[in-house]
């Protein structure tokens, strides 16, 4: 199966009679809110049911977990999330993020695993068979930590994760699969929480990613936030009350904002009505009604839309092409239904974007195609993807050195030689980063590796060859050997925000014991 594990919504597809097919749940829903809600009576709700609990059970309902996955507690995104979400984000070991639900601490992958397990259930209900093998998609711009954490989530859900692939690449696969195209395509992928652009050359059966760029802090959620703050501002003007101080009211505003945004895709003006949003000191409850026009909305989000084109500029520049050299633009992600996005994309590329693919389902379908291809020897498509971020080595004085450039095809490896710096040195430590700055502090730390087990000698006498590999999942592996003796040096990794094997095992058993409640 192929799973598009989104910030806001998740979708699952399989290959049925040779065709990628989205599998709906028993209520016919084809996409499922990426939300988990822990009820007071011990039940666990997942998906669209759980989403309804955001308002009534805000402390114990987790949404947008993907914004936190694979991030350090001190990161900007986590700080931002802590100020907006009602559930309790706390710090775990090694600067990791934990979410506290009543007295229990959950890791982020563990919560994503509950959503993944539900997707597996949807497929198993449909096929009547056990299904464990899955391809899971991630934003192209995800770093190694985020990919590892997503893979862990799959493992915790009891899945055999065949491959982690990039969302825009999956979408391209779904678009070009079996079509025999020879085209240069741009994938403009605006999801709930992330934005990616990938440029691919499709040559018959080969899907070569030329460049990718992204912003993991930009998505449809940000558009909702703009409406939400606009609503709060207008309410404050009318009633002199700041609803942002009230968690419950804020969630209601957020819900209304998302609804209004979706409404504006079809209508020029939408009515917004939120009953009983506020109760004053006299116990008098207030409703809130207003209208929002497309023009007002467009103005609110113009800078967000412009930011997506900065990313497009970057992707085109990396690919060394201009917008006019693109044959086709494919829109991916629910927010690309917005008229402002469609018209801006058309204006930027001077070409009508393709609209006959479903932006909510195309990624899951592509993932299903890739899962099928990996398991079937008759595979006939070749994905040549790239690494989105430059892999770097920490050097002295707070600087870094490039090892593997961004937009390098994967899998790939690069070797570096290191000589010992002190007499009788027993271990060599290296720190690995991802990012686009020469300054260490501006990159993301992936991990710290320590090598030992090589010959102990005078300084400069021992040369250790370190191999950095980025595998087909986009995940970084490091190995080392003593160049002279050929002895493999042992590697230990520390200080990443990821889960230890023991933590994964513990999460697996907790996940196995968890029963997702049926819809009432």
């Amino acid at each position, binding site marked *: 199966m192929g799973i598009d594990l989104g910030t806001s919504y998740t979708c699952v597809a399989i290959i049925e009679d040779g065709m990628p097919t989205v599998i709906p749940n028993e209520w016919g829903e084809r996409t499922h809110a990426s939300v988990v809600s822990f009820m007071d009576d011990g039940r666990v709700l997942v998906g669209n049911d759980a989403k309804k609990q955001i308002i009534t059970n805000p402390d114990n309902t987790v949404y947008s977990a993907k914004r936190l996955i694979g991030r350090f507690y001190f990161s900007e995104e986590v700080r931002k999330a802590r100020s907006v979400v009602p559930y309790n984000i706390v710090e775990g070991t090694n600067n990791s993020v934990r979410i506290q639900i009543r007295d229990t601490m959950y890791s982020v992958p563990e919560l994503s695993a509950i959503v993944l397990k539900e997707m597996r259930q949807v497929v198993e209900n449909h096929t009547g068979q056990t299904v464990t093998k899955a391809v899971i998609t991630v934003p192209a711009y995800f770093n190694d930590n985020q990919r590892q954490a997503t893979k862990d989530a799959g493992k915790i859900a009891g899945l055999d994760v065949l491959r982690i692939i990039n969302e825009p690449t999956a979408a391209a696969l779904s678009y070009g699969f079996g079509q025999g195209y020879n085209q240069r395509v741009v994938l403009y992928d605006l999801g709930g929480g992330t934005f990616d652009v990938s440029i691919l050359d499709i040559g018959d059966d080969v899907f070569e990613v030329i460049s990718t760029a992204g912003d993991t802090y930009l998505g449809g959620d940000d558009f909702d936030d703009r409406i939400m703050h606009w609503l709060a501002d207008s309410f404050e003007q009318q009633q002199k009350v700041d609803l942002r101080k009230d968690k419950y009211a804020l969630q209601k505003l957020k819900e209304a904002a998302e609804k209004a945004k979706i409404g504006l895709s079809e209508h020029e003006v939408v009515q917004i009505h939120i009953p009983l949003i506020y109760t004053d000191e006299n116990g008098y409850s207030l409703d809130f009604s207003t209208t929002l026009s497309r023009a007002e909305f467009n103005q609110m989000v113009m800078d967000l839309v412009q930011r997506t084109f900065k990313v497009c500029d970057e992707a085109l520049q990396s690919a060394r092409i201009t917008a006019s050299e693109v044959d086709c633009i494919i829109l991916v992600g629910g927010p690309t239904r917005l008229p402002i996005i469609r018209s801006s994309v058309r204006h930027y590329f001077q070409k009508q974007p393709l609209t006959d693919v479903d932006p909510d389902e195309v990624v899951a379908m592509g993932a299903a195609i890739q899962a099928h291809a990996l398991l079937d020897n008759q595979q006939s498509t*070749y994905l040549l993807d790239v690494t989105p971020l430059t892999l770097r080595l920490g050097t002295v004085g707070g600087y870094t050195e490039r090892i593997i450039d961004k937009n390098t095809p994967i899998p790939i490896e690069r070797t570096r030689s290191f000589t010992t710096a002190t007499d009788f040195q027993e271990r060599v430590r290296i720190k690995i980063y991802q990012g686009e700055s020469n300054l260490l502090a501006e990159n993301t730390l992936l991990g710290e590796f320590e090598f030992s087990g090589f010959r102990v000698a005078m300084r400069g006498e021992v040369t250790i060859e370190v191999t950095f590999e980025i595998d087909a999942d986009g995940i970084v592996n490091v190995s080392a050997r003593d160049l002279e003796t050929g002895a493999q040096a042992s590697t230990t990794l520390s200080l990443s925000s990821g889960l230890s094997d023991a933590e994964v095992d513990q999460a697996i058993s907790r996940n196995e014991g968890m029963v997702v409640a049926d819809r009432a």
Partner: protein
Amino acid sequence: MPEDPNIHPDWAAEAKDIADSLDLLDYFQILGAEIEAPAEELKLRYHQLQRNYHPDTFFSSPDLELRAAVTKIAKRVAEAYVILRDPQKRAKYTRDIAGPERAQRLRYSEDSEREARQEKVEELGRTAQGRKLWAKAQDCLRRGDLQGAQRDLQTALLFERDNERFKTKLDEIKAQLGAR
């Protein structure tokens, strides 16, 4: 090692041989292209080789040695493609493998990269005065003022004593002046 029933044993044996001999081949040989091959041809060769050796094709193969071999080949093919699709790196690499250190230069290393950066700096001069005088010498040459160019380059070499580019140009000018 269990053999893969879907793959001809000769083909598998050949792939393993290729994987073992990669370190003896230059990037052009790996891609199966001529040194002068145009960029489009390298891209086509890259696609063709990935069709043959893409690790995904062998994802479910029981022959682990074969899987390791094709992964090794695919990675080296990608490396060759990445270096050769960049015109500057390609020029540097092509010179390196034609030189006396060919055996050590078959893979584009951090040394190659450092040298390439160095060359780029040398091209224009390392010092502000060097760059200025180099530009002045170029102007003189365009006007056909060989003596002026000679003077500027000699001064430039006072600032950058070992700039090969300055030296070569100066020698050229001296030869031209001598021939008159």
